[in-house]
Protein backbone atom coordinates (compact mmCIF):
# COMPACT_ATOMS: atom_id res chain seq x y z
CA UNK A 1 0.00 0.00 0.00
CA UNK A 2 2.04 2.87 -1.30
CA UNK A 3 1.57 6.32 0.19
CA UNK A 4 -0.16 8.77 -2.15
CA UNK A 5 1.77 11.99 -2.69
CA UNK A 6 -0.55 14.84 -3.62
CA UNK A 7 0.42 18.24 -4.92
CA UNK A 8 -1.49 21.24 -3.63
CA UNK A 9 -0.20 24.56 -4.90
CA UNK A 10 3.36 24.94 -3.79
CA UNK A 11 3.27 21.98 -1.42
CA UNK A 12 3.18 18.22 -1.38
CA UNK A 13 0.87 16.39 0.98
CA UNK A 14 1.67 12.79 1.84
CA UNK A 15 -1.00 11.05 3.90
CA UNK A 16 0.29 7.79 5.34
CA UNK A 17 -2.99 5.99 5.54
CA UNK A 18 -2.35 2.67 7.18
CA UNK A 19 0.28 0.46 8.70
CA UNK A 20 3.23 0.33 6.41
CA UNK A 21 5.83 -2.39 6.37
CA UNK A 22 9.40 -1.20 6.79
CA UNK A 23 10.02 -1.64 3.11
CA UNK A 24 7.01 0.45 2.12
CA UNK A 25 8.18 3.12 4.54
CA UNK A 26 11.64 3.20 2.92
CA UNK A 27 10.09 3.31 -0.52
CA UNK A 28 8.01 6.26 0.57
CA UNK A 29 11.15 8.01 1.78
CA UNK A 30 12.92 7.78 -1.60
CA UNK A 31 9.80 8.62 -3.57
CA UNK A 32 9.17 11.77 -1.55
CA UNK A 33 12.73 13.04 -2.00
CA UNK A 34 12.36 12.56 -5.74
CA UNK A 35 8.95 14.18 -5.93
CA UNK A 36 10.29 17.29 -4.20
CA UNK A 37 12.63 17.70 -7.13
CA UNK A 38 10.16 16.81 -9.83
CA UNK A 39 7.39 19.09 -8.62
CA UNK A 40 9.65 21.88 -7.36
CA UNK A 41 7.49 22.49 -4.33
CA UNK A 42 8.78 24.47 -1.40
CA UNK A 43 7.35 22.26 1.30
CA UNK A 44 6.01 18.87 2.26
CA UNK A 45 3.40 17.91 4.84
CA UNK A 46 3.52 14.30 6.00
CA UNK A 47 0.25 13.24 7.60
CA UNK A 48 0.74 10.26 9.90
CA UNK A 49 -2.76 10.26 11.37
CA UNK A 50 -3.47 6.93 9.69
CA UNK A 51 -0.58 5.07 11.34
CA UNK A 52 -1.46 2.44 13.91
CA UNK A 53 1.95 2.54 15.56
CA UNK A 54 4.95 4.84 15.48
CA UNK A 55 7.76 2.67 16.72
CA UNK A 56 11.46 3.41 16.68
CA UNK A 57 11.87 2.36 13.08
CA UNK A 58 9.00 4.55 11.90
CA UNK A 59 10.17 7.51 13.98
CA UNK A 60 13.65 7.23 12.64
CA UNK A 61 12.42 7.01 9.07
CA UNK A 62 10.26 10.10 9.58
CA UNK A 63 13.34 11.90 10.85
CA UNK A 64 15.34 10.75 7.83
CA UNK A 65 12.60 11.78 5.42
CA UNK A 66 12.38 15.28 6.78
CA UNK A 67 16.17 15.67 6.71
CA UNK A 68 16.29 14.47 3.12
CA UNK A 69 13.57 16.92 2.13
CA UNK A 70 15.60 19.71 3.74
CA UNK A 71 18.75 18.72 1.88
CA UNK A 72 16.67 18.94 -1.30
CA UNK A 73 15.90 22.51 -0.34
CA UNK A 74 12.31 22.26 0.85
CA UNK A 75 10.62 22.37 4.25
CA UNK A 76 8.92 19.41 5.88
CA UNK A 77 6.31 19.13 8.61
CA UNK A 78 4.87 16.01 10.23
CA UNK A 79 1.24 16.28 11.27
CA UNK A 80 -1.42 14.10 12.83
CA UNK A 81 0.45 12.26 15.56
CA UNK A 82 -2.46 10.89 17.60
CA UNK A 83 -2.38 11.48 21.37
CA UNK A 84 -2.06 7.79 22.21
CA UNK A 85 0.86 7.40 19.81
CA UNK A 86 2.50 10.57 21.10
CA UNK A 87 2.36 9.07 24.56
CA UNK A 88 3.84 5.77 23.41
CA UNK A 89 6.61 7.61 21.57
CA UNK A 90 7.57 9.56 24.65
CA UNK A 91 7.68 6.40 26.74
CA UNK A 92 9.83 4.73 24.15
CA UNK A 93 12.17 7.71 24.10
CA UNK A 94 11.34 8.97 20.62
CA UNK A 95 11.23 12.75 20.61
CA UNK A 96 11.45 13.30 16.82
CA UNK A 97 14.24 15.80 17.43
CA UNK A 98 14.71 18.24 14.59
CA UNK A 99 11.35 17.48 13.05
CA UNK A 100 8.76 20.24 12.74
CA UNK A 101 5.34 19.04 13.80
CA UNK A 102 1.82 20.44 13.71
CA UNK A 103 -1.56 19.26 14.92
CA UNK A 104 -3.19 18.48 11.61
CA UNK A 105 -3.06 19.17 7.90
CA UNK A 106 -4.48 22.66 8.23
CA UNK A 107 -2.00 23.74 10.87
CA UNK A 108 0.74 21.95 8.99
CA UNK A 109 0.12 23.99 5.87
CA UNK A 110 0.18 27.17 7.91
CA UNK A 111 3.41 26.18 9.58
CA UNK A 112 5.09 25.27 6.35
CA UNK A 113 4.28 28.60 4.78
CA UNK A 114 5.70 30.32 7.80
CA UNK A 115 8.82 28.15 7.73
CA UNK A 116 9.35 28.98 4.08
CA UNK A 117 9.23 32.67 4.85
CA UNK A 118 11.52 32.34 7.83
CA UNK A 119 13.94 29.70 6.72
CA UNK A 120 16.87 31.99 6.98
CA UNK A 121 16.03 33.76 10.13
CA UNK A 122 16.40 30.30 11.63
CA UNK A 123 19.92 30.04 10.30
CA UNK A 124 19.58 27.34 7.80
Amino acid at each position, binding site marked *: MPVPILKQGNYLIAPIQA*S*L*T*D*EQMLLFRSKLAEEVGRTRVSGVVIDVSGL*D*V*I*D*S*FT*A*RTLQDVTRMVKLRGAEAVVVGI*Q*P*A*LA*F*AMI*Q*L*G*LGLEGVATALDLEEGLELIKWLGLNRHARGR
Partner: protein
Amino acid sequence: MLVADELSIPIVSEADIVEARQRGRQLAVESGFGVSDQALIATAISELARNILQYAKRGEVVISAERRGNRAGVGVVASDRGPGIADLTRALEDGFSTGNGLGLGLPGTRRIMDEFELESEVGGGTRVTVKKWVV
Protein backbone atom coordinates in the same frame (compact mmCIF):
# COMPACT_ATOMS: atom_id res chain seq x y z
CA MET B 1 -16.65 -12.98 19.78
CA LEU B 2 -14.55 -15.84 20.88
CA VAL B 3 -10.96 -15.08 21.66
CA ALA B 4 -8.28 -17.71 21.81
CA ASP B 5 -6.36 -17.51 25.05
CA GLU B 6 -3.12 -17.63 23.23
CA LEU B 7 -2.12 -16.78 19.71
CA SER B 8 1.19 -17.54 18.08
CA ILE B 9 2.36 -15.42 15.17
CA PRO B 10 5.43 -16.64 13.27
CA ILE B 11 7.75 -13.77 12.41
CA VAL B 12 9.51 -14.33 9.13
CA SER B 13 8.73 -11.21 7.12
CA GLU B 14 7.97 -7.55 7.63
CA ALA B 15 4.29 -8.11 7.10
CA ASP B 16 4.34 -10.35 10.18
CA ILE B 17 5.47 -7.42 12.31
CA VAL B 18 2.36 -5.51 11.29
CA GLU B 19 0.21 -8.60 11.78
CA ALA B 20 1.59 -9.24 15.25
CA ARG B 21 1.05 -5.74 16.53
CA GLN B 22 -2.45 -5.57 15.07
CA ARG B 23 -3.36 -8.83 16.79
CA GLY B 24 -1.87 -7.52 19.99
CA ARG B 25 -3.89 -4.36 19.80
CA GLN B 26 -7.06 -6.32 19.16
CA LEU B 27 -6.43 -8.46 22.20
CA ALA B 28 -5.72 -5.33 24.23
CA VAL B 29 -9.06 -3.88 23.15
CA GLU B 30 -10.86 -7.07 24.11
CA SER B 31 -9.06 -7.18 27.45
CA GLY B 32 -10.43 -3.77 28.34
CA PHE B 33 -7.33 -1.61 27.87
CA GLY B 34 -7.82 2.06 27.05
CA VAL B 35 -6.61 3.56 23.79
CA SER B 36 -3.27 4.72 25.23
CA ASP B 37 -2.41 1.29 26.56
CA GLN B 38 -3.52 -0.31 23.30
CA ALA B 39 -0.95 1.84 21.51
CA LEU B 40 1.72 1.00 24.06
CA ILE B 41 1.15 -2.73 23.69
CA ALA B 42 1.10 -2.55 19.90
CA THR B 43 4.30 -0.50 19.91
CA ALA B 44 6.09 -2.93 22.22
CA ILE B 45 5.13 -5.87 20.00
CA SER B 46 6.35 -3.97 16.96
CA GLU B 47 9.76 -3.40 18.54
CA LEU B 48 10.16 -7.00 19.69
CA ALA B 49 8.99 -8.49 16.40
CA ARG B 50 11.33 -6.26 14.45
CA ASN B 51 14.27 -7.32 16.60
CA ILE B 52 13.47 -10.95 15.82
CA LEU B 53 13.39 -10.29 12.10
CA GLN B 54 16.47 -8.11 12.14
CA TYR B 55 18.76 -10.04 14.45
CA ALA B 56 17.47 -13.61 14.31
CA LYS B 57 15.82 -13.63 10.86
CA ARG B 58 12.90 -15.72 12.20
CA GLY B 59 11.08 -16.48 15.40
CA GLU B 60 7.64 -16.08 16.90
CA VAL B 61 5.51 -13.76 18.95
CA VAL B 62 2.95 -15.32 21.26
CA ILE B 63 0.29 -13.04 22.66
CA SER B 64 -1.99 -14.18 25.43
CA ALA B 65 -4.88 -12.98 27.51
CA GLU B 66 -3.72 -12.95 31.12
CA ARG B 67 -5.50 -12.87 34.43
CA ARG B 68 -4.11 -12.36 37.90
CA GLY B 69 -6.67 -12.26 40.66
CA ASN B 70 -9.37 -10.12 39.10
CA ARG B 71 -7.02 -8.10 36.93
CA ALA B 72 -6.96 -8.65 33.20
CA GLY B 73 -3.83 -8.27 31.21
CA VAL B 74 -1.96 -9.03 28.01
CA GLY B 75 1.20 -11.08 27.80
CA VAL B 76 3.69 -11.17 24.96
CA VAL B 77 6.52 -13.63 24.48
CA ALA B 78 8.91 -12.89 21.63
CA SER B 79 11.34 -15.70 21.07
CA ASP B 80 13.86 -16.81 18.51
CA ARG B 81 16.76 -19.22 18.05
CA GLY B 82 19.00 -16.53 16.63
CA PRO B 83 22.49 -15.43 17.68
CA GLY B 84 21.49 -14.31 21.16
CA ILE B 85 22.75 -11.22 22.98
CA ALA B 86 26.26 -11.16 24.42
CA ASP B 87 25.88 -8.28 26.85
CA LEU B 88 22.35 -8.02 28.26
CA THR B 89 23.13 -4.96 30.34
CA ARG B 90 24.29 -2.95 27.36
CA ALA B 91 21.39 -4.19 25.22
CA LEU B 92 19.08 -2.61 27.77
CA GLU B 93 20.80 0.77 27.64
CA ASP B 94 19.12 3.57 25.74
CA GLY B 95 20.88 4.11 22.46
CA PHE B 96 22.82 0.86 22.27
CA SER B 97 22.45 -0.86 18.92
CA THR B 98 24.64 -3.35 17.11
CA GLY B 99 22.44 -2.90 14.09
CA ASN B 100 21.42 0.29 12.47
CA GLY B 101 18.74 1.12 15.03
CA LEU B 102 18.09 3.84 17.54
CA GLY B 103 18.76 1.36 20.34
CA LEU B 104 15.46 2.16 22.03
CA GLY B 105 13.57 -1.06 21.33
CA LEU B 106 14.47 -3.08 24.40
CA PRO B 107 14.81 -0.27 26.98
CA GLY B 108 11.70 1.42 25.56
CA THR B 109 9.66 -1.77 25.72
CA ARG B 110 10.79 -2.21 29.30
CA ARG B 111 9.48 1.28 30.13
CA ILE B 112 6.25 0.68 28.27
CA MET B 113 5.25 -2.61 29.86
CA ASP B 114 4.54 -3.45 33.51
CA GLU B 115 6.64 -6.58 33.52
CA PHE B 116 9.71 -7.27 31.46
CA GLU B 117 12.05 -10.21 31.32
CA LEU B 118 14.94 -10.75 28.92
CA GLU B 119 16.65 -14.10 28.56
CA SER B 120 19.30 -14.80 26.01
CA GLU B 121 22.09 -17.19 25.31
CA VAL B 122 24.80 -16.56 22.76
CA GLY B 123 24.24 -19.05 19.97
CA GLY B 124 21.03 -20.24 21.57
CA GLY B 125 18.52 -17.48 21.00
CA THR B 126 16.58 -14.78 22.77
CA ARG B 127 13.32 -14.66 24.63
CA VAL B 128 11.60 -11.49 25.81
CA THR B 129 8.56 -11.88 28.05
CA VAL B 130 6.44 -8.82 28.81
CA LYS B 131 3.08 -8.18 30.44
CA LYS B 132 0.79 -5.29 30.94
CA TRP B 133 -2.19 -5.10 33.30
CA VAL B 134 -5.39 -3.13 33.03
CA VAL B 135 -5.28 -0.48 35.76
